[in-house]
C-alpha cells in the first residue's frame, strides 16, 4: 500500500483522538439533517407539481367581482371558442364541500366524462368494465384522505351530501384514487359534472371557471390580451403564473427555513469557535513539539486543514444520507406538515426523490463555509505555536 507519510500521520491523529471530533460531527449531523430534510421536501413537492403542469390547461379564465371569484356564465365558452388559436375550451366546476361535523372540507370536482382528455385520463385509472359501471349511477372517486375521513365517520361505502337546496343526495364511493397522487388528490372528490353542480348548488348555465389551451406558445401574450378585453370582470391566469406561484411558495417556505437556519448557523459557528479554541489549546504542547521537530507553520496548517475537511466530508455525507432516508424512505413524518399543512385532512404523500446539484451544493456551502471559517482562526493560532513550547 503506497500512502504518503503525511497521510499516515493525519489518519493516526484523526482516529486515535476521534473522541475529540465526535461531538462536532454530531452537531453537524443535526444541522445537516434538518437543513437537508427541509430542502428535500420542498424540492420534491416542487418537482412533482412541475410534472403535473404539463397536464394543466394553459389558461384559466375566471370571473371576479370585488376581488372575489364568482361563477362564470356558460355563454363565455362560446365566445372564447371564436378566438383564433384557442383550443380545448372546457368548463370547470369545483368547490369546497364542508363536512360540518368536524369542520373539515372536501374539494368537489365535477368532470365531464364525455370530454376527450378526461376520458383518456380516466382510462389510465380504470379498465373498461369499471368505466361502464362507474358512469352508470351516482358514483364518486375520492382521494385517500377523504376516504379515510369518511370511514372514521362511518361512511364506508358512500356519503349523503346535503345540497344548498336542503335536498339529500346519496353518492356511492366507487374507488379510492391511488396514494401516489395524494399530493393533489388527497382531499378531492371527483363526480360527474351535473352531480357536482347539484351538490355545490350551481345553476345549469354556470361554471366555476373556464380552462383553455393555446397550442402555439408564441401566441400566449396575444391571446391573454385578447381575452382580457372581452369582459370587464374577467381574470386570466396563465400556467406561467401558476408555475411562479409554486416556485414562490417553496422559495418562501424554504427561505423562511433558511433564515431560521442562519440563526442556528451563527450559534453553531460560535460553539465551534469556542470548542476549537479549547481543543487546540490542549494540543498546544503537541503542536509545539511538532514545530520543534521541524514542522513548519504551513505543515501544521495543512494537517489541521485536512482534519477539518475529513470532518466536513464525513458529516456532510452522513447528514445528507440521513435526511434522504427520513424524507424519501420514511416520508418525512411531522416535518411535511409544515409544507403541506395539517389543519384539514391528514395527508400522507409519497415524496418522489429529487437530488440535484442545486440542493446538494446549497447544503454543502451553507454548512462547510461557516464551519471552516469558524475553525480557521483557532487553527492558525495553534499552527503558529512557538517551537520552544516543547522545551518547557
Amino acid at each position, binding site marked *: 500500500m503506497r500512502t504518503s507519510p503525511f497521510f499516515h500521520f493525519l489518519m493516526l491523529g484523526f482516529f486515535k483522538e476521534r473522541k475529540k471530533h465526535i461531538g462536532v460531527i454530531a452537531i453537524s449531523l443535526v444541522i445537516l439533517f434538518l437543513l437537508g430534510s427541509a430542502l428535500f421536501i420542498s424540492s420534491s413537492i416542487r418537482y412533482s407539481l412541475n410534472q403535473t403542469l404539463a397536464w394543466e390547461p394553459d389558461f384559466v379564465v375566471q370571473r371576479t367581482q370585488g376581488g372575489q371569484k364568482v361563477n362564470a356564465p356558460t355563454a363565455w365558452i362560446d365566445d372564447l371558442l371564436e378566438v383564433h388559436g384557442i383550443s380545448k375550451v372546457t368548463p370547470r366546476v369545483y368547490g369546497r364541500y364542508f363536512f360540518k361535523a368536524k369542520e373539515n372540507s372536501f374539494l368537489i370536482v365535477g368532470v365531464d366524462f364525455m370530454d376527450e382528455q378526461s376520458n383518456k385520463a380516466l382510462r389510465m385509472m380504470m379498465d373498461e368494465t369499471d368505466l361502464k359501471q362507474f358512469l352508470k349511477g351516482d358514483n364518486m372517486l375520492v382521494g385517500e384522505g377523504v376516504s379515510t375521513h369518511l370511514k372514521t365517520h362511518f361512511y364506508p361505502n358512500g356519503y349523503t351530501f346535503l345540497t344548498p337546496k336542503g335536498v339529500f343526495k346519496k353518492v356511492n364511493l366507487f374507488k379510492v384514487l391511488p396514494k401516489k397522487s395524494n399530493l393533489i388528490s388527497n382531499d378531492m372528490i371527483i363526480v360527474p359534472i351535473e352531480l357536482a353542480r347539484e351538490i355545490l348548488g350551481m345553476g345549469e348555465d354556470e361554471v366555476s371557471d373556464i380552462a383553455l389551451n393555446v397550442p402555439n406558445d408564441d401566441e400566449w401574450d396575444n391571446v391573454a390580451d385578447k381575452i382580457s378585453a372581452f369582459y370587464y370582470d374577467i381574470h386570466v391566469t396563465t400556467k406561467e403564473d401558476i408555475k411562479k406561484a409554486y416556485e414562490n411558495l417553496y422559495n418562501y417556505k424554504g427561505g423562511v427555513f433558511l433564515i431560521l437556519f442562519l440563526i442556528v448557523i451563527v450559534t453553531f459557528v460560535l460553539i465551534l469557535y469556542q470548542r476549537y479554541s479549547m481543543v487546540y489549546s490542549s494540543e498546544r504542547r503537541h503542536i509545539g513539539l511538532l514545530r*520543534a521537530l521541524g514542522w513548519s507553520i504551513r505543515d501544521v496548517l495543512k494537517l489541521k486543514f485536512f482534519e477539518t475537511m475529513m470532518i466536513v466530508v464525513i458529516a456532510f455525507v452522513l447528514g445528507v444520507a440521513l435526511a434522504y432516508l427520513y424524507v424519501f424512505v420514511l416520508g418525512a413524518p411531522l416535518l411535511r406538515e409544515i409544507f403541506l399543512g395539517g389543519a384539514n385532512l391528514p395527508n400522507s404523500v409519497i415524496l418522489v426523490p429529487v437530488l440535484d446539484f442545486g440542493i446538494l451544493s446549497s447544503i454543502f456551502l451553507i454548512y462547510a463555509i461557516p464551519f471552516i471559517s469558524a475553525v480557521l482562526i483557532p487553527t492558525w493560532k495553534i499552527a503558529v505555536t512557538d517551537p*520552544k513550547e516543547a522545551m518547557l
Partner: protein
Amino acid sequence: MMKAMIVIDNLNKHFKSGDDIFKVLKGINLQINSGECIVLKGVSGSGKTTLLSIIGGLDRPSSGKVLVEGESISKLPDLHISHFRARKIGMIFQHFNLFDHLTAAENVMIPLIPTGLDMHEVNHKVEVSLKLANIFHKANSAAGRLSGGEKQRVAIARALASNPAIILCDEPTANLDRNNSLKFIDILSQLHEMGKTIVVATHDPLFDTLPFESKIIPMEDGSLVDTFSKDTLAES
C-alpha cells in the same frame, strides 16, 4: 582539521515581563567545531536551555548572530528555519516529549514527514534509527507504555531519524536513574564516534567525566564563565 559548525557571535536574549527587562543571555561568543561534544553546565536559570533552543532554531535571539555552516539562522522565515530544524538538528528533550498514544516507530517518523520522502524511505529510516538506538524490539508498542529508559532511547532514535549533523540534548538524564543515565552516555559516545556535533545542556555531574573527548563550558547567569578543554581520555 577542524571545521567550524556553529558560530555564535555576541548573542543576547532578553524577555520583557511588564516593564522589567529580563536578560537571559548576555553577549555570548562561542565556536563549536564539527564533531565536537560540548557540555553546557550550569544551575537551572543560567540560560543554558535558552542558548540550546536558539542554536536549534527553536527560539530567536534579541540581537547577535548564530551561524550554522556559515549561514545565519536567526532571521530566517519560518518555512526555512523549520526546514533547517528538520534536516540539521536532532533534539532530545528533558521530558522525552513523546506522543504517548503513538507507537515508538510512529514517534520516530514525525520529523521525517515534512521532508517529503515517500513511505518506503521513511520506514527504512525509522528502522535504521530504531536499531541504532537499540529499541527496535519495541517499535510497535505505544510510547506511553514504555519505561523511562526505553522512552529515552525512542527519543534518541527520533533525534537521529533524519540523520542530522547536530544533536542537541536538554537535561537528557534528568528523568533517568543512574543505570539508564550511564547507558545514555554510552549511546552518546557512539554518536560522537559517528562524527555528530553534540551539545548537551545539563547539571548532572555524570557529564563531568565523559568517556570521550569533550569540552565542558560552565554557564552562570547568562554568560559563559570560562572555556577550557578537558581531555578526559588522557586523564584516565
